[in-house]
């Protein structure tokens, strides 16, 4: 270990981040995983712990990615990647698929985000009020509709700016929606008190985590 107090911790890798989310999903939940890092969560849920993955384009019961020589060209997910369907999987049209989301039938949605505020606001679809041709997709439906919204993202931007903030400066995806944030540094619940740190990367101090976080962090009660 190095002697520097600040550098003396090991952030979670992307694989570890996805794995930590995966471990927190119980059998039987219906789950939608957003495009990007969240998609990788599925790889860490063993098939015998049955979690049913939903994709906005009318797929319920997604399985692992197909082997290259076994691609079904009519089976893609919302990220437009080829997928497989598990036994028990089913197809529906877009309005029925979004009924699952908007009607509150998904137990969990995991999204990436640009910013999360300590009141649960999430911004994940546009980086400026004047974005040219902003693209929202299903993010607002998922954020407003799922029973629980978790965010999986880096703790800061590449240039070190905090992404866990007191107020989102980017356009909102949904207000007061996020229940939990998994970052490369910590797992943090969004509560009435604000951000409550559940666990941290090994070696990290609470003070150091706070230094990388705009909003105030709390210890569990």
């Amino acid at each position, binding site marked *: 270990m190095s002697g520097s107090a600040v550098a003396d911790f090991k952030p979670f890798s992307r694989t570890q981040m996805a794995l930590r989310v995966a471990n927190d999903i119980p*059998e*039987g939940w*219906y789950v939608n995983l957003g495009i990007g890092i969240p998609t990788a969560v599925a790889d860490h849920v063993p098939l*015998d712990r*049955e979690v*049913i993955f*939903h994709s906005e384009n009318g797929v*319920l*019961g997604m399985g692992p990615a197909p082997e290259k020589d076994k691609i079904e060209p009519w089976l893609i997910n919302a990220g437009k990647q080829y997928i497989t*369907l*598990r*036994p*028990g*999987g*089913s*197809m*529906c049209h877009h*309005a029925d698929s*979004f*009924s*699952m*989301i*908007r*009607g*509150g*039938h*998904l137990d969990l949605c995991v999204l990436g985000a640009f910013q999360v505020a300590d009141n649960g606001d999430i911004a994940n679809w546009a980086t400026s009020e004047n974005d040219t041709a902003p693209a929202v997709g299903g993010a607002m439906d998922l954020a407003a*509709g799922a029973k629980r919204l978790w965010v999986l993202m880096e703790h800061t931007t590449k240039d070190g700016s905090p992404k866990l903030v007191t107020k989102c400066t980017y356009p909102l995806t949904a207000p007061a929606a996020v229940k939990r944030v998994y970052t490369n540094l910590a797992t943090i619940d969004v509560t009435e008190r604000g951000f409550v740190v559940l666990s941290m990367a090994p070696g990290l101090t609470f003070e150091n985590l706070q230094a990388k976080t705009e909003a105030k962090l709390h210890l569990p009660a």
Partner: protein
Amino acid sequence: MINKIVQSMADAMADIKDGSTVLLAGFGAVGQPNVLIDGLIEQGAKDLTVACNNAGTGHIGLARLMELGRVRKIVCSFPRSSDPVVFETLYRAGKIELEIVPQGTLAERMRAAGAGVPAFFTATGVGTKMAVGKEHREIEGRTYILENALYGDLGLVEAWEADRWGNLTYKLAGRNFNPIVAMASKLTVVQTQHVRELGDIDPDHIVTPGIFVDRVLHVPYGDPSGF
């Protein structure tokens, strides 16, 4: 392993509370979860609001549930049948409340509940008694009224096939209100004619995906008969 298939009526009916709103699927004698209704009678929950296309026939099923004084209110489109004596007696005696809803509005209100739509505009009922007290709005030159979603605490459904994830198919006119009752209910309990292995129902043929289903009881009673 997810297994929504329950082994007993007691398991199917566990934790149903007094005061629940119960959505009953079925139209005529077809696709009607009769065995589950009997289970609900046995289970004992009271002070129920029941939404169903009609209001029971003879002295069995829903009529029996009403006769036992367990139903506070009926929400339906057609409270008549070949033998509506139980409902009519209770209604004349002021012992049961009635909310008449056009059949399509009843269906759409259930679908809305399942789809996250708390209220919607419709032309059905405009200019009639059904519109009294409802919000009216002119949209693109036509007048509509606002109707609310109809949520179920409990939904009772009859399916043709089911698997352990709760995926369902229906047979012919047995489909009727079943898929929308499943969507609209917090707790959806299904009686099914056939239990299939997971994966045996074609993914393109599943009508109600298991996400809308909580418990499945195998009730292979055969064909419906009589009305």
